[in-house]
Each structure stands twice: as C-alpha cells, then as structure tokens.
C-alpha cells in the first residue's frame, strides 16, 4: 500500500516540478495528457470500479467542452471560472443522468451498444446543427478567469496557469476517487462489479448505485472536456466521437483496469505512444501511418500484459521467482485501488 501511495505522490511531485524544465511544447503536451488522465479516471469509475463498460464516455467529455464554449459570453468578455466550470460539469452530469437512467436498464453487450448510441446522438447534434458549429466547431472567444477581469488571480489563457489548474483538478479528482472507492458507496460499487446478483440478494438496490456512479463519472468526464476546450480554445464534434470513447477505453485497459494509478499510467502511455508514432523525426514518411504502429503496440501490450502496465512489476517479479503469473494475479486481486 505504501509503495503505491509513494508512486502516486512521486508522480504528482514530478508533474508539479515539470514546468521548471519544460518548454512550451512539453507544457502543452503534458497539460493535454493530464486532461486525458482526468478523462480516463472518469471512465475507470464505471469500467474498473463498477464493471460497466461504457462506450459513450466521449459524449460527456464533449458536452463539458461545448458547454464551456457555448456558455461563455459572445461579446468576448472573459467568463468567470467560478460559474463556468460548475455549469459545464453539471451539463455533462445532466446528460449522464438521462443516458444512465435508460442505459442501465440494459446489460452486457446491449449496454455497450446503447451507450454508444447515446454518444452518437450527442455527436450528431453538434455535427449537424448550428448549435455546435457543424464540422468546423466553435472558438472560445475569451478564456475563463478567476477574480477581477482587469487583474485576475488566475487566467487560464496563460499556459502555466492552465497547466497548474489542470494538475490541481487531477490531484483533487484522484484524491476524491481514492476516498470514494474505499467508502461504503465505493465498496458497494465493487460488490456490484464482482457479483450484482449477490448484492441484490443481500439487500442492495443496485440501480441507484450504478446511476450515481454514471452521473459522477459523466461529471468528471465533463471536467476533462471543459479543460480540453479551455486549453485549446476550440471545440469540434470529434470531441464526442466514438474514436475518443474507444481511445479512453484503451487508456484504462493499457494502464490496468481496477486501479486508479492504472488510469494515470494508461493516459500517459497512450498519449506518449501516439506522439512517438507520429514523430516524423523517427519514422519519416511512415509517421502518417501512426495509427498502425500504435494499434500493433496496443495489441501486443494487451496480449503480453493482461493486467496492464500496473501489473508489469508483479509479472516480472513472478517470472523472476518462478511463481505462476495467474496465482500472483489472484493474490493481488483484492488490492486497493
């Protein structure tokens, strides 16, 4: 337990110190990765903690991003962060409440398909109507600030400010989820994932628990979307596409399902692999086929690391000590998130 906490603290400390050595590209890249990590953590609550494989998570991410832009004043005045952020998160959570209320009446592959369908509905609303600016998307005229508009305490137009604010959001979200998953509510979600039938037989009405997890997850994904929209100052329908829902699912699988730090590691690994295979300096003209390299790497990772990158040290230790990986995995199955 201590080494897991130590790892997480070390990661956050490294992220806090990173701006001291980073250039503008690095700062922007790591900000984007931290937004992905927030997004991945939101899905981890559904997939890793509750056993609900949602294939429409990008809808909440996109709604958070679009809300940030659409709710901002059109006259170019900087919106207040204090109201724009909660409003964007609330918009995503509200859509999650409606979507969850209906999707959670299905199970298994039907649940996956219905969540995808809801996300595609949101996608086409912004893609095909003037509301979302169509395929061109919409620009954010002024980035949110905290404090007086003339001399704000926090101006998210500054790269260092958006970096620090994203890091703070990620740290708070991580802490919140760690607390949540160890609580009675979180343990009930773990029970639902392990055996919903037994939970009902024990006296838990599981539907409200799953719906609450869905809404919290949607709100957190909305937070990620908000930060993404504010960082880039631009939103387009791709933020709600099924590609992004698939990408975030890959992040948490790559990192290791059932572990909060797995979502963090997965987001970093996915984004860095993406940058690596896109690099023309390394791959030359072949870099335009970066999805091929990324796909093959992910297939190899899933085949070779069944417990994700989080399980890699255990897998190596098992190999070195001659212990069977399956028993090592079983012994670790109950570990805390």
């Amino acid at each position, binding site marked *: 337990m201590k080494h897991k906490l130590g790892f997480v603290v070390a990661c956050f400390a490294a992220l806090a110190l990173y701006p001291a050595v980073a250039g503008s590209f690095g700062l922007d890249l790591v900000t984007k990765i931290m937004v992905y990590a927030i997004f991945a953590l939101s899905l981890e609550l559904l997939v890793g903690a509750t056993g609900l494989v949602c294939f429409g998570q990008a809808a909440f991410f996109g709604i958070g991003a679009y809300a940030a832009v659409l709710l901002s004043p059109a006259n170019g005045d900087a919106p207040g962060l204090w109201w724009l952020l909660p409003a964007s998160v609330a918009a995503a959570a509200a859509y999650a409440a409606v979507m969850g209320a209906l999707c959670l009446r299905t199970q298994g592959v039907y649940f996956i398909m219905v969540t995808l369908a809801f996300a595609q509905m949101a996608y086409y609303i912004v893609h095909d109507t003037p509301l979302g600016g169509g395929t061109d998307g919409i620009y954010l005229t002024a980035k949110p600030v905290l404090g007086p508009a003339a001399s704000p305490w926090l101006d998210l137009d500054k790269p260092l400010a958006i970096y620090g604010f994203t890091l703070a959001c990620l740290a708070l979200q991580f802490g919140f989820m760690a*607390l949540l998953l160890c609580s*009675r509510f979180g343990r*009930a979600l773990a029970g639902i994932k*392990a055996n919903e039938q*037994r939970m009902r*037989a024990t*006296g*838990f009405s599981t539907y409200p628990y799953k719906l609450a997890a869905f809404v919290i997850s949607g709100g957190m994904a909305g937070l990620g979307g908000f930060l993404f929209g504010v960082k880039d100052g631009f939103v387009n329908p791709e933020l709600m596409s099924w590609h992004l829902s698939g990408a975030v699912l890959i992040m948490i699988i790559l990192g290791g399902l059932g572990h909060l730090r797995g979502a963090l590691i997965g987001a970093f690994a996915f984004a860095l692999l993406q940058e690596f295979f896109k690099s023309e300096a390394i791959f030359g003209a072949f870099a335009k086929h970066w999805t091929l390299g990324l796909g093959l790497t992910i297939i190899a990772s899933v085949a070779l690391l069944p417990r994700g990158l989080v399980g890699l040290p255990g897998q190596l230790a098992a190999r070195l000590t001659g212990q069977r990986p399956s028993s090592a995995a079983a012994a670790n199955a*109950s570990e805390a998130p």
Partner: protein
Amino acid sequence: MTVLLQGHQLTRRWGGLVAVNQVSLALESGTVHAVIGTNGAGKSTLINLLSGETEPSSGQVQLLGQDVTRWSQPQRARAGLGRSYQRNTIYPGFTVLENCRLAAQARHPQPWQWWRDAQRCEFSMGAARAAVARTGLDAVADRQAGLLSHGQKRQLEIAMCLATGPQVLLLDEPLAGMGAEETERMLALLTELRQGHAILLVEHDMDAVFRIADTITVMVNGSVIATGSPDAVRHNPEVQAAYLGGH
C-alpha cells in the same frame, strides 16, 4: 411456533412450462423445512419466488405477516430474508471479513456514505465479525475468499446471509460438492442456526435432509406431492415411487 415466511398457491409459468405449480408452504421459527425433488422439479424456482428474484405468475408471499409479493428482492432481503445460491456467489477478490462486512452494509441506515473508509464502520464490521465467528471462519477471516476451500466457501455464503441479520434463511444446496467432514461441519452449523431462524433447505443429500429437517416437502414437475415429517415422507408410497426409489 411463529410462521415467519409463507408462500400461498405460488405458480410460475414460462410460456407453456409450469415450473412451480400452486405450491404452498409455511416456514416456522426454529425449524428446518427441507424441499427435495429431482433436478428440474422447481425447487430453485420456488426459492427464487420466495426471495423475490423471480416474480410469481400467481400466488402470494408473506414475510413476517406482511404481504411482500410485489416487493423487490433487495426490499425482502432488508426485511429479514437471506438466501444462498446453488453455486458460490461470494466476492472472490475480497477477504472473508470484507465479504461479510459488505453484506452487513446493506442494512446500514446510511449505506451510501462516500467520505469515510468503510472499514471504519463499526456497525457493519461488528455484524461481519459476529457472522464470521458464528460460522467458524475466524481463522481465515483475513484470507482472500477466492482462495478458500469449497467447504469454506459454502460456509462463507451462509456467513454473508447471517451478516444481514435475517430471520429467514433460504439455502439452495449448501452441501453440494462437500466431503464427509465438511458436510458434518455444515450440518452442525445449520443445527445451531435453527435457533432463532426459519430455514428452508433445498438439498440433494438425502441422509443429511432426513437427519436435520423437521418438515420435508417433496416436489415433482413443479408440484408438491407430499409434505410432512421425515418419517411420514419416508413411508409415503407416492414419494418412494417418484423420488426415493424404495429407500
């Protein structure tokens, strides 16, 4: 004796198949009521109807004098009805104590609390420790449930039921797959649990059933063909012909 759970004229149809046909039974406090029958006789469906997992096509279920026919399974569980399944339904990744603690949490007045470590909940931890002790699992309380022996897993199933503080226990083949020693241990546990509970026992081990049951109901093709004391059932010619094979 007080009747704690009563099924009245329970019927369950799936299309043309009548899985349970007009079955009535009453479970009294301090007694073990066994239901026997061949595979497909409707025993597990009957438990599902009583526990609320399956809705009856017709008939009525009363728990502690209240009509609970339209109640959901979780509502019935919280009202004092515990059940175990034919196959293990424990949470294999959790410790034995955590399996019971989570079960006990269902009765907590604030099961949704999200800001405090669940392990610090005295209410559910107390109930879990008591259930673990009562089922003789103290020595393995901190062991991961998936690593227990088959017999211990069956005991844990019952411990999880007990952690919810039930008055009625519906046990679906608790002795399935057990060796002689484990069976003896489980029978001793059931005998001890008889005090303060009404137990419905669905079981294929006839020796065990005739040793422990106060009342036996025999089902064939969804219908009850006999109900009575073990002696009366043993000597019932219809039962002998249909099920016991002349034992």
